């Protein structure tokens, strides 16, 4: 068990990071902090997927002089580039919503907003 965990330390780390993020999303009262939790979760998942492509002693998959096998799997990195774009747009949308909520209600604390409702 312990050994399996040790061998997959990168995966375990991303799972822990994911849980930290989820905890923040659920427990934080401040909308911005909630969203920071979400960003932590995103990072965790991205890190996990990028780590999938790692090959021991692998080289960057760039063709040219001195490129030699084995290469690191480039596909996860390509995917995560897309993933990051999605994450950025989600963050932008969320932040713009938070700004508008703050302008209209004067607060971004979830409990105060619930009272104002």
């Amino acid at each position, binding site marked *: 068990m312990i050994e399996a965990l040790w061998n997959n330390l990168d995966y375990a780390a991303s799972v822990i990071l994911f849980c930290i993020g989820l905890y923040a999303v659920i427990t934080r009262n401040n909308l911005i902090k909630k969203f920071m939790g979400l960003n932590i979760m995103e990072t965790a*998942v991205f890190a996990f997927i990028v780590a999938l492509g790692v090959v021991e002693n692998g080289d960057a998959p760039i063709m040219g002089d001195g490129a030699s096998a084995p290469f690191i799997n480039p596909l996860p990195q390509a995917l995560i580039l*897309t993933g990051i774009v999605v994450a950025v747009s989600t963050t932008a*949308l969320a932040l713009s*919503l938070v700004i508008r909520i703050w302008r*209209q*209600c004067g607060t971004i604390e979830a409990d105060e907003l619930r009272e104002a409702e």
Partner: protein
Amino acid sequence: MTSWSPLLALFLVIPLVGAVLTPVVSDSSGRRSWGWAVFIMSVTSAMSVSLIVRVLEEGPFSYVIGGWVAPYGIELRFDEFSASVAIVCLLGLLAIVFSRHYAPQALTPERIPYYYTLLLLNLTGMLGFIVTGDLFNLYVFTEILSLSAYALVAISGEKTAEMAAFKYLVMGAVSSLSILFGVGLLYALTGSLNMADVTSRLAGTAHAPLVMAFAALTLGFMVKAALFPLHIWLPDAHAIAPSPVSAVLSGLVVKIGILGMLRVYQMAYGSGAIDLSGLNLTLTWLGAISIVMGAFFAVFQDDIKMMLAYSTISNIGYIVMGLGLASSYSLIGASVHVFNHALIKATLFLGAGALIHQTGQRTLTGLAGIGRSMPFTTAAISIGAISIVGIPPTAGFLCKWYIALGALEAGEPIFAVALVFGALLIFIYYIRMVNAFYFRKPQDAGAPAVHEAPLTMLVPVLILAALCLIMGILGRLPLSFIEPAVTRLLTPLGGG
């Protein structure tokens, strides 16, 4: 190959480009952006018809982007489940047509072009989700439709709308990440992202990560589908959004969660690598609880759109219960209900939108006696109400019939009971609604006279109401699509 294969790619590119160009072609009144959106959606609908004709003639087919052969390239795949693009196109088109007079009243003029952009993006996301054969693209399209949905909920700019949108966004983003995590795990296990390819490689992989992957995917799609207890984002978001958006959200967007689960099931059943009975049991129970709970809360709502939103939760419960029971009857019933509920709920939400647009009232108390001044709209809503309760010969009947039969077939009469009594509860609410429309005196006699809704609102609502009836009488039509798909779903890939 008789028809032109890149049509499948063009089918996604046209609405996507159309969406982006909407603000460019728009004028100050927003009228031209409406025309543009209608045009784009009509073209897309026409293409969807040709695609469906082809799947009927030739069976499932696919197109690989950039000429890379699957499993390496990005594959678009069109099978019987993909025939649901027809309903997406139809509802999308009708919602856009409906928006002509609705949008200017609900939104500020400068937001109107963006409203159509978001709506088109949302529809593109759904179309892509349905036809993609690639797991990562499944995630990307989920995000396209989710992000546009969050923005659409907030677009009216009201305080409550923005808060509902934020709640929706947080839950939606968490679920998307869960889906992405599941996709990543599957990739780690199989080294492939093509769904068909993943299915064939799943057998023999490590058990624990596999369970985790399916759990993450299911959990993510459960949030998207608003299944109890992950439904809390839905009532506010669906009730506060502009009515055409509510129709699209309730009719289609939540169904993406269901279709996602179907995709997961396709892989799980197909590979036979994982025992789903535990998941099935959980889904069945959660579905049953959703049915009763959604219906129960709906009974106590005075706000007509809030009630419709809770009724969506209840109906999602029917579908998920049908999936969970996993007998061929219940799967057929659940799949048909995905289509029919979309029609019915769109009828109701657009009808409610017409009432709200004409009267400015959204509570049953405020809408008392409206049946006398808006007879066509209320008649259409009544047909929708009868359908959603599931009274023959309307569209809702056959699905519930099949799901109940499935419950009995699986030897679980308790779920048939839950189904029938959920329907009964919903019936009570709709009786309240009809009561208010027809049998109560208008609240204050001095209010200005209310007129029937303009044609761009009335016609979509009436078309949908007519479809609710037609799909009931021609109940066999969707079955002809779904039966082969369900049969294929239940037979493992290798076996006959």
